[in-house]
C-alpha cells in the first residue's frame, strides 16, 4: 500500500469521526432548541448539521476519487465545501447576533473566485470571525473550554487554508499531511464540549 493511499484512508477515517462528533453536536443543539426554544440552539443546529453533511460528502468525494471517478468526486467536493461554508457561516452568524445584541458593529468582507475556492475562502472568513468572537467571549466568561473550542476552530481553519494552498502547488502531499493533522486536532477539540455535555462535568 502506497503512502498516498494510507493518507487517503486516514483522511476518510477522520471524516467519519468528525461526522459522528458534529452529528452529536447537532443532536445536543436540536434538543436544546426543542426544550428552550432559544434561537442560539437553532443556529447551532443548522451549523452542526451542515458541517456534518460536509464531512459526509467529503467522505463520498474521497471514495469516488479512490475509485477513479474524478468528475463525480469533484462535484461531491464542491457540495461539501458549500455545506462547510454554510456550517461555519451559522457559527459566525451566532456570534454576529450576540455582538449585535451587545450593540457593537461587525462586518464581513467577501471574496469569490471559483466554486471550491470561493466556499473555502468564505469558510475561512467565517471561522476567523468565530475565532475572534470566541476569544472575546473567553475574556468575558473565563471558561477554559472556550480556549479549546478556539484551538479547534484554528485547527479547522488551518486545515482549510492548507487544503486551499495545496490546490495551487505541484507537490501538495506535505501540505495535505499537515492539513489532516490540523483537522484531527480540530475534531478532537470539538469533541470536548460534547463529552462535557454527556458526562455532566463543568
Amino acid at each position, binding site marked *: 500500500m502506497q503512502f498516498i493511499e494510507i493518507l487517503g484512508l486516514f483522511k476518510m477515517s477522520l471524516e467519519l469521526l468528525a461526522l459522528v462528533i458534529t452529528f452529536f453536536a447537532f443532536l445536543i443543539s436540536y434538543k436544546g432548541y426543542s426544550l*428552550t426554544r432559544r434561537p442560539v440552539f437553532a443556529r447551532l443546529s443548522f451549523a452542526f448539521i451542515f458541517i456534518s453533511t460536509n464531512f459526509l460528502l467529503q467522505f463520498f468525494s474521497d471514495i469516488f476519487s479512490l475509485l477513479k471517478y474524478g468528475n463525480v468526486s469533484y462535484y461531491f467536493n464542491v457540495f461539501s465545501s458549500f455545506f462547510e461554508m454554510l456550517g461555519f457561516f451559522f457559527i459566525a452568524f451566532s456570534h454576529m447576533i450576540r455582538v449585535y445584541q451587545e450593540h457593537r458593529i461587525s462586518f464581513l468582507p467577501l471574496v469569490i473566485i471559483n466554486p471550491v475556492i470561493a466556499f473555502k475562502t468564505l469558510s475561512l472568513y467565517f471561522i476567523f470571525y468565530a475565532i475572534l468572537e470566541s476569544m472575546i467571549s*473567553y475574556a468575558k*466568561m473565563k*471558561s477554559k*473550554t*472556550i480556549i479549546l473550542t478556539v484551538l479547534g476552530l484554528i485547527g479547522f481553519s488551518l486545515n482549510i487554508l492548507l487544503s486551499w494552498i495545496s490546490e495551487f502547488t505541484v507537490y501538495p502531499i506535505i501540505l495535505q499531511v499537515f492539513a489532516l493533522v490540523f483537522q484531527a486536532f480540530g475534531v478532537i477539540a470539538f469533541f470536548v464540549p460534547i463529552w462535557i455535555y454527556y458526562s455532566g462535568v463543568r
Partner: protein
Amino acid sequence: MSYRHQVRIVSDILLAVKEGHEDGVGVAQLMRKANISYTRLIKILNELISVGLVEEIKSERSRKYRITYLGLEYLAEYERFSTFARNFGLEI
C-alpha cells in the same frame, strides 16, 4: 445591556427557590434574588406550580415556595445546555 429572556428568568426564579431548600422561600426574598416585579413573579410562579416545577407551602402566616424534583431536573438540564453554548463562546 442585554435583556433577560423568559427561559433565563425562569431559571433565575428556580435557582432562588432552590436556595430555600426544604423550608421554602417567601415572595419578597424571591423578588429580590430573581430581580423581578411582584406581578410578574406571581404569574410565573403559578405557571411553574401548574407544570410541577415548584410547589407551594401554605401556612397560616405565610406562603412559601419549594422546588420539586422535576424543578431540580429542569435546572440541571438548563445548566448543561447553558454550558454547551458557553463552550462555543455563546450564551443562551
